[in-house]
C-alpha cells in the first residue's frame, strides 16, 4: 500500500469522511465538524502580504476596463446610460445572448464530460489519442470555425450555426478540467457504488458526476464567458447578441457611450455567472478531487457499446478538428490569390509566438497569487479577488482594447502602441483562464505541506517558492499553455494595440479575409491552428 502524500492528498471533505468512522466511537460533535477540520479548510487565515499585494495588483489590472466603462458610460450622465440600457432591445439581446450561452454551455458539458469519461475511465481503444483530439479544437479560432461552417453550408447561419461553431471550439474548456478531475477520483468509490447495486450509469450519475461538478462548473463558466464575449462567430453567423450590439454601436454610430453602457450590462452578467459558479463549488469547491489515487482505475469495458463510443468520439473529432482543417485545405488549394509568401508567413508566425508567449507569461505570473489565494483562502476578500479577475472576461475584445487605449494615452503614454501594452491587454483579457488553472493546480497540493514548511522555518514567500509553486507547476504550466493558445487567436485587441506595423497570424487572417482573398487567408489560418495545436496537444497529454 504505497500511501504517498502525492497519492494520498485528499480534500477536507474526503479526509473528513475517511476519518469519520475511526472517530465515530469517540462519538459526538457532528455540529462542530466544520470547525474541527479548520486545519484543512484554513478558516480564518488572512493571505500573507506576499500573495495579497500582487493579487490585488492583478485584480486592479483586471478591473481597468470597468473603470473605463464607468467613465464612458456615465459621460452623459447616468440618465443617458440608463436610457440606453433600459431599451426594450437590451432585454431582447440579453435573452438572445443568454440563450446562446445556455445552449453552448450545455452542449459543451455534454461533449466535454462524455469525452473525458470515455477517454479516462473506459477501455476506449486509442484513449490517449482521442484525449488529445478532444483538446485540439482549442486551437481553432471561433471565426475560423464559423467561416468553415458557413462556407460549407450557408444555411447554418443564425442561432444554430453560432451555437454549433462556438460549442465545437469551446468544449475543451470543460473537457480538460473534467478529465483531470476524473483521474483524481478514487475508483474505490465507484466500486463501492457498484457493490451497492448501482449499475455503471447509475454509478456515474450518483457518484462520479456530483464529484465532477466543481470542475465542470469551472469549465462551464469559462465557456459561458467565452460565448458572451465572442464577436467573430456570432457576426459571421449573423446571430444578434449583446456583443454584436456593442460592436454595431461602435461601428455605425461612432459612439462610445452607448457601447460602454451596454458593456456594463455584460459585466453585470459576468458577475452573476461567476457568483453562480462560486455557489456550485460550495463545500465541494474545496473538497476537490485529488491528484492521483493509490490505485489506477480499472478501465470500464465498453462491450457492445464500443463501436458507439468510437463513433461518438470520431464524430466529434471530425466536426471539431477535421472539418475546419479540411475547409482550410480546400481554400489552400483553390483560387488564384493563393500566392504563398512563406517568408512573411514565418515572420508573422514568429511574431505571433513571441507576443502570445509574453502574454501567457505575464498572465500566468499575475494569475499565480490570485489562484493561490482562491485555492487556499476563504472569505469575502478572497472571493472578491478571484471574481475581480473574471470581471472583464465577458467583455468584447474591442472594449478591453479601448479601455487600455484610454488609460495608456493618459497614464502610460510611452507604452502606448508598444508591445508591453498589448501583452497587458492579453493579461486583462485572459486572466481568468490562468487563474482557473492555477487554482485547480494549487488545490491538488495538500495545504498541510505548506504548514509543515512554515513550521520548518520558511517564510510565506519561501513556502510559495519552495513548496506551493513546484507542486502546482505542472498545472500552472498547463494554464500557461492554454493562455498561450487563446492569446495567439486574439484579434480585436491585437488590432488596436499592436505596435504599428506588427502583424500576428490573426491580424493577417483578418486582413486577407477582409480583402476577400480566402485562399490567401488560408495559410495564416492553417499556421495559426497548427501552432496553437502544439500547446493544445501538450494539454491533451498532460495528466494533472
Amino acid at each position: 500500500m504505497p500511501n504517498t502524500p502525492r497519492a494520498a492528498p485528499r480534500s477536507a471533505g474526503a479526509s473528513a469522511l475517511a476519518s469519520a468512522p475511526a472517530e465515530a466511537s469517540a462519538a459526538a460533535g457532528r455540529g462542530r465538524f466544520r470547525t474541527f477540520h479548520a486545519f484543512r479548510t484554513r478558516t480564518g487565515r488572512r493571505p500573507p502580504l506576499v500573495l495579497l499585494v500582487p493579487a490585488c495588483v492583478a485584480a486592479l489590472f483586471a478591473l481597468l476596463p470597468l473603470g473605463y466603462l464607468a467613465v464612458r458610460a456615465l459621460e452623459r450622465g447616468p440618465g443617458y446610460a440608463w436610457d440606453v440600457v433600459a431599451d426594450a432591445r437590451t432585454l431582447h439581446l440579453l435573452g438572445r445572448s443568454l440563450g446562446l450561452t445556455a445552449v453552448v454551455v450545455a452542449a459543451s458539458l455534454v461533449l466535454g464530460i462524455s469525452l473525458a469519461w470515455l477517454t479516462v475511465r473506459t477501455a476506449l481503444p486509442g484513449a490517449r489519442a482521442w484525449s488529445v483530439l478532444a483538446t485540439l479544437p482549442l486551437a481553432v479560432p471561433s471565426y475560423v470555425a464559423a467561416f468553415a461552417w458557413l462556407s460549407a453550408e450557408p444555411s447554418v447561419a443564425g442561432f444554430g450555426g453560432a451555437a454549433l461553431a462556438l460549442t465545437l471550439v469551446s468544449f475543451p474548456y470543460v473537457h480538460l478540467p473534467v478529465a483531470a478531475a476524473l483521474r483524481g477520483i478514487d475508483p474505490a468509490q465507484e466500486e463501492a457504488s457498484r457493490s451497492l447495486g448501482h449499475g455503471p450509469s447509475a454509478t456515474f450519475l450518483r457518484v462520479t458526476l456530483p464529484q465532477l461538478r466543481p470542475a465542470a462548473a469551472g469549465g462551464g463558466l469559462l465557456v459561458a464567458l467565452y460565448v458572451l464575449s465572442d464577436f467573430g462567430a456570432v457576426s459571421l453567423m449573423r446571430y444578434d447578441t449583446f456583443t454584436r450590439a456593442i460592436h454595431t454601436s461602435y461601428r455605425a454610430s461612432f459612439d462610445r457611450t452607448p457601447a460602454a453602457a451596454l458593456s456594463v450590462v455584460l459585466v453585470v452578467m459576468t458577475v452573476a455567472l461567476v457568483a453562480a459558479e462560486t455557489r456550485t463549488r460550495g463545500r465541494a469547491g474545496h473538497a476537490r478531487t485529488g491528484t492521483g489515487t493509490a490505485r489506477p482505475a480499472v478501465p470500464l469495458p465498453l462491450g457492445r457499446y464500443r463501436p458507439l463510443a468510437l463513433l461518438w468520439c470520431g464524430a466529434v473529432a471530425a466536426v471539431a478538428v477535421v472539418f475546419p482543417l479540411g475547409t482550410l485545405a480546400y481554400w489552400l488549394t483553390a483560387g488564384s490569390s493563393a500566392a504563398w509568401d512563406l517568408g512573411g508567413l514565418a515572420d508573422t508566425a514568429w511574431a505571433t509566438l513571441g507576443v502570445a508567449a509574453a502574454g501567457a507569461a505575464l498572465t500566468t505570473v499575475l494569475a499565480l497569487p490570485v489562484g493561490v489565494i482562491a485555492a487556499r483562502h476563504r472569505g469575502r476578500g478572497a472571493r472578491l479577488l478571484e471574481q475581480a479577475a473574471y470581471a472583464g472576461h465577458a467583455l468584447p475584445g474591442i472594449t478591453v482594447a479601448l479601455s487600455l487605449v484610454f488609460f495608456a494615452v493618459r497614464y502610460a503614454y510611452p507604452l502606448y502602441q508598444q508591445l508591453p501594452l498589448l501583452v497587458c491587454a492579453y493579461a486583462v483579457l485572459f486572466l481568468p483562464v490562468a487563474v482557473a488553472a492555477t487554482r485547480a493546480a494549487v488545490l491538488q497540493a495538500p495545504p498541510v505541506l505548506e504548514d509543515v514548511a512554515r513550521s520548518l522555518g520558511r517564510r510565506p514567500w519561501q513556502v510559495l517558492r519552495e513548496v506551493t509553486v513546484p507542486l502546482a507547476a505542472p498545472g500552472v504550466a498547463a494554464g500557461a499553455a492554454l493562455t498561450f493558445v487563446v492569446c495567439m487567436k486574439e484579434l480585436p485587441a491585437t488590432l488596436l494595440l499592436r505596435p504599428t506595423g506588427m502583424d500576428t497570424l490573426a491580424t493577417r487572417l483578418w486582413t486577407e479575409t477582409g480583402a476577400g482573398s480566402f485562399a490567401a487567408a488560408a495559410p495564416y489560418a492553417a499556421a495559426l491552428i497548427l501552432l496553437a495545436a502544439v500547446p493544445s496537444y501538450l494539454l491533451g497529454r498532460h495528466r494533472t
Partner: protein
Amino acid sequence: MRRPLAGRITALVAAGLLLPALAACGSDDDGSSQGKGGDSALVIYSGRNEKLVKPLLDKLEKAVGTKVEVRYGDSAELAAQLLEEGERTKAGLFFSQDAGALGSLSKEGMLAKLPQTHLDKVDKAYRSGDGDWVGTSGRVRVIAYHPDKVAEGEVPDSVHDVVKPEWKDKVGFAPTNASFQAFVTGMRVLEGDDATRKWLKALKDNGAKTYAHNLATLDAVESGEVSLGLINHYYWYERVAEKGEEKVGAKLHFLPGKDPGALINVAGVGILTNAGQSEAAQKAVDFLLSKEAQTYFADETKEYPLAAGVTSTVEGLPPFDSLESPDIDLGKLESLQETLAMLQDVGLV
C-alpha cells in the same frame, strides 16, 4: 513515472514561453527606438484594407519623403481609437474606408482644415462641407444578380422594386455593412424617415436575407441562394479580376434615375490636428489626389477616381459621369445614429 513526465512538460512549456517572449522583448526594443526616432515619421491610421492600399502607401512614402508608418484596422474601430486617444494621438493622417468615420472625427474637431487647393481637386459632393476631409475614391451601390435566375432586363431599376412580392426571399444584403447603412442614411435624407422605415420594413417582410458583409452577399448571389444582392460595385470587379468574368456567377446592374440605391460613397482622408505631422500629412493628401494615386484606385481597387482628371479604364465599368446617382451631401451621412436606431427598430441589425 508521472513526475518526470510532468516535469518535462513543465520545462517544455516554460522554454516554449520564454524563448519567443524574450525574442519579442528584443524586437520590442527595436520597435520603441523606431517610435522615438520617428518624430518626423508620418503615422497613418488606415481603415482601408492593407491588401488594397499597401502598394499605394509604399509609393506615398516615397512621394512624401519621410518615413511612413501605417496602422491598419477597421475604419469605425480606428475612429473610436482616435476619439479615445484624443489630442495625444500619434496619427497624422486618417485614411478611412467611408465618409462616416471621417465625419465623426470632424464633429469632435479632431481634423485640421485642408488647404483649399486640395479641396478644389475634388467635386464638392465628395468632400467635407467643413473642409476637413476629402474623398479620394468613390464607389457606387449596385444590384448584383444571378443571370440564370434573372434576365438582364428584369433586374429592378430601383431599390423600391426589390421589396415587391416577385422578389420575395430572393434579395440579399448586408445590414451591418457601413456602405449599406450609408445608403439607408442617404435614403432618409432623400425621401424622409417615414418612407425609409417603410422600405426597410417591406424589405424585411419580403424575406430579404441578411449577410455579414458585401462579399458574403455576392457569394450568395453567385451560388444562387438569392437572385439579387445589394452591394458596392468594386467587389464584383475584384472578383472578376481574381477569377475571370466567365467564372463569376453574378452580374451587375447600375441603377438609373438618381435612385437612392445608386448612392456614391467615398473613401477619404483627413489630417489629425494634434499629431504635429501636418506638413507630411498634407504632402500625403496631395499624393492621394495625384494622378498616380488616382490611377491606382481606378486600376487596382476598381473604384472611381475622384481627382486629377483620371478616369477608370476597368473593362465594363460605366464611366463615372454616366452614373445617375442621387444628389446628396455626404457630410450628412456622418451620423448614423438614427439610421442605426431605425435598423434596430425594424429588426435588421
